[in-house]
């Protein structure tokens, strides 16, 4: 009898332990910590530096709001959406989440986000920039800061190759190709003119110069002719050796900006979002400047535009909607938070915060700010959030662009297939 009892208790103990570990895995839902504070979960991606800044800002917020305990859920960019979508699928969505514009509709259209129109103060925001976070009149997301996709150049390397810096108010795509080729030949091949970019923002700017929108509702607005013209620029760059051959370009394209040609001083130009200026300057250790994108000859608009670097959004399922909104409000409107985060999430979208932190910004960001001020009058309106499925656009565009660069597909064929696949992706 007694041995039977022992066995019973041993087995029960084993199952109990399993139950306990399972409970640990699911994490404390409900959102209250042991000391009665409200627990708010906040997910974001980025570098270690961003994590340190964010934790510092969170600490200040907690000091001001002693009843709220904010728990940062941090991951790298590559696995961010994977983790976030899995949490949402498991009804375990963080109260506050960071999103970028391509992922916004994926979440908003599926009812995962709360309307923040009345709960976050947006009085100091540019209305057009703010509008990018709104869908059907509901403010699902608050922009953190803005960026412009621009051309970056290392003037010292251009001059070293005995080429002249362009006048970016008038330069054309042909000028860009010529300059790239000249840098390569002038330096005896030691410095490459530029590196290729397959960022949809680049195609978007080019298409805008031809008067075509990138998205037309749930359809691609870019025509096959435009895409082919755009590819021709890159084919010319490869042909004139202004950029490495297709294989090397694809290899460079797969690395981060630190290992880009511009970042390693192996190339003189490249195109990125303007908030990358700090990173590329640091990697190269030399002076890097921002330029306007080249234009199609006779184009009436440059096509460049501001786009939020990222957004804060609140879960529609959050049990602490008021606290979530309060935290977002603090992150975007409080100069104290702004002084810590600075331009890490784009140049602050709130004009009040921007004015307060302007002098504290690192040199690269001051340069970006000056550049954006300079081109402000020429910018196109910030585009609305792209349709669902747009997160795949960069991959699709890269794939067909590479097929063309490698000569495995004709531009005609690739343009048609790209449009078909892109439309299928965003229609779904």
């Amino acid at each position, binding site marked *: 009898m007694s041995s*039977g009892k022992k*066995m*019973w208790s*041993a*087995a*029960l103990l*084993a*199952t109990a*332990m*399993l139950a306990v570990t*399972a409970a640990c895995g699911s994490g404390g839902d409900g959102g209250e910590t042991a000391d009665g504070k409200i627990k708010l979960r906040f997910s974001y991606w980025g570098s270690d530096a961003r994590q340190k800044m964010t934790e510092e800002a969170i600490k200040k917020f907690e000091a001001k709001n002693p009843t709220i305990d904010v728990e940062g859920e941090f991951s790298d960019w*590559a696995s961010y*959406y*994977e983790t976030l*979508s*899995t949490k*949402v*699928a498991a009804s375990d969505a963080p109260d506050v989440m960071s999103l970028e514009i391509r992922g916004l509709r*994926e*979440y908003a259209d*599926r*009812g*995962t986000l709360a309307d923040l129109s009345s709960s976050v103060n947006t009085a100091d925001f540019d209305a057009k920039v703010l509008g990018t976070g709104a869908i059907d009149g509901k403010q699902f997301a608050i922009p953190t800061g803005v960026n412009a996709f621009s051309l970056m150049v290392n003037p010292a390397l251009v001059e070293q190759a005995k080429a002249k810096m362009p006048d970016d108010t008038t330069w054309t795509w042909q000028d860009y190709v010529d300059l790239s080729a000249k840098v390569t030949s002038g330096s005896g091949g030691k410095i490459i003119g530029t590196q290729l970019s397959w960022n949809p923002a680049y195609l978007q700017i080019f298409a805008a110069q031809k008067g075509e929108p990138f998205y037309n509702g749930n359809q691609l607005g870019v025509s096959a002719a435009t895409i082919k013209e755009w590819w021709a620029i890159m084919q010319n760059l490869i042909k004139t050796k202004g950029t*490495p*051959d*297709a*294989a*090397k*370009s*694809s*290899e*460079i394209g*797969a*690395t981060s900006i630190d290992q880009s040609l511009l970042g390693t001083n192996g190339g003189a130009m490249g195109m990125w979002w303007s908030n990358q200026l700090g990173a590329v300057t640091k990697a190269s250790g030399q002076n890097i400047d921002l330029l306007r994108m080249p234009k199609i000859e006779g184009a009436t608009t440059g096509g460049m535009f501001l786009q939020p670097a990222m957004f804060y959004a609140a879960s529609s399922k959050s049990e602490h909607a008021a606290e979530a909104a309060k935290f977002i409000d603090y992150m975007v409107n409080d100069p104290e938070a702004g002084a810590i985060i600075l331009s890490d999430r784009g140049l602050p979208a709130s004009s009040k915060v921007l004015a307060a932190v302007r002098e504290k910004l690192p040199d690269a960001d001051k340069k970006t700010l000056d550049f954006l001020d300079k081109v402000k009058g020429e910018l196109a309106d910030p585009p609305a959030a792209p349709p*669902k*499925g747009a*997160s*795949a656009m960069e*991959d699709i565009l*890269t*794939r067909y662009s*590479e*097929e063309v660069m*490698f000569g*495995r597909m004709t531009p005609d064929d690739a343009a048609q297939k790209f449009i078909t696949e892109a439309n299928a*992706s965003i229609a*779904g």
Partner: protein
Amino acid sequence: MADSVAVKTRPAAAQPPSSGRRTQRARREARAAYLFLAPWFVGLLVITIGPIVASLYLSFTDYSLLSEAKWVGLDNYVKMFTEDPRFLSSLKVTTIYVVVSVPLQLAFALALALVLDRGLRGLPIYRSIFYLPSLLGGSVAIAILWRKVFGSDGLVNAVLSIFGIEGPGWVGDPDTALGTLILLHVWTFGAPMIIFLAGLRQIPSSYYEAAAVDGAGALRQFRSITMPLLTPIIFFNLVLEVIKSFQSFTQAFIVSNGKGGPADSTLFYTLYLYLKGFKSYDMGYAAAMAWILLLIIAALTGVNFLASKYWVFYGDTK
């Protein structure tokens, strides 16, 4: 909850409880056994069988992870074979990878096992050294190293340039990118090599002695003794490696930066499945792909077993 089920499902007493003590004791032991099995059983249900059943269900739905799954019947399966050229191309890439790399890897493993079987001094050391790539091969670090070694400014091209050859960017070129992954797989020959070594040890040396007396040379001995007696081991390795390499993921994911590029030349089946599920928010489709993969692997393994009748030699059956 599941453990209470396990407790209740103890075998009902079939025989009348006549021979008192014995059955009572047996029953108590059975009960204890089920109790001890309960934790494992919970794991099996919750962590293995549950997700398998769920994925089968999801494969018939349109499921984005973010909203509820909608039943669509066989749509996902039909779409795969009719509207998705990338699915077919991923299947092609994976098949080439398996068909080329598995035989190469096994041949390499067998060759090294034969060399090491010569009673070398310090055999354990060599064995460990050659086994090392097998431990490392699937790791992220090695994949990153591979990208560097085969990059256009990598080690391989540095060596080639000594001979005046200007090598291409191996991982950046769609014609050679898959080749670098095949090489990486061949390089991880350690695990089959160890198994071959064990198999070689089991062949009685008296066979070789007898053959030597009859005047058979080394080649003849290899063909008539080693190979036939080793066929079960080769078969075992073949089945294992085919299954494993059909599911390769990490290498392609890292070397192509998670995209299967350039131009889809390294888009492995599992990589495409992952991209569909987590990047395109098409988890239903991804689940359907997983089931097709299971069917493919099961079919291949079946074919392997059927074919084995004609070439695998089990000493005791013939």
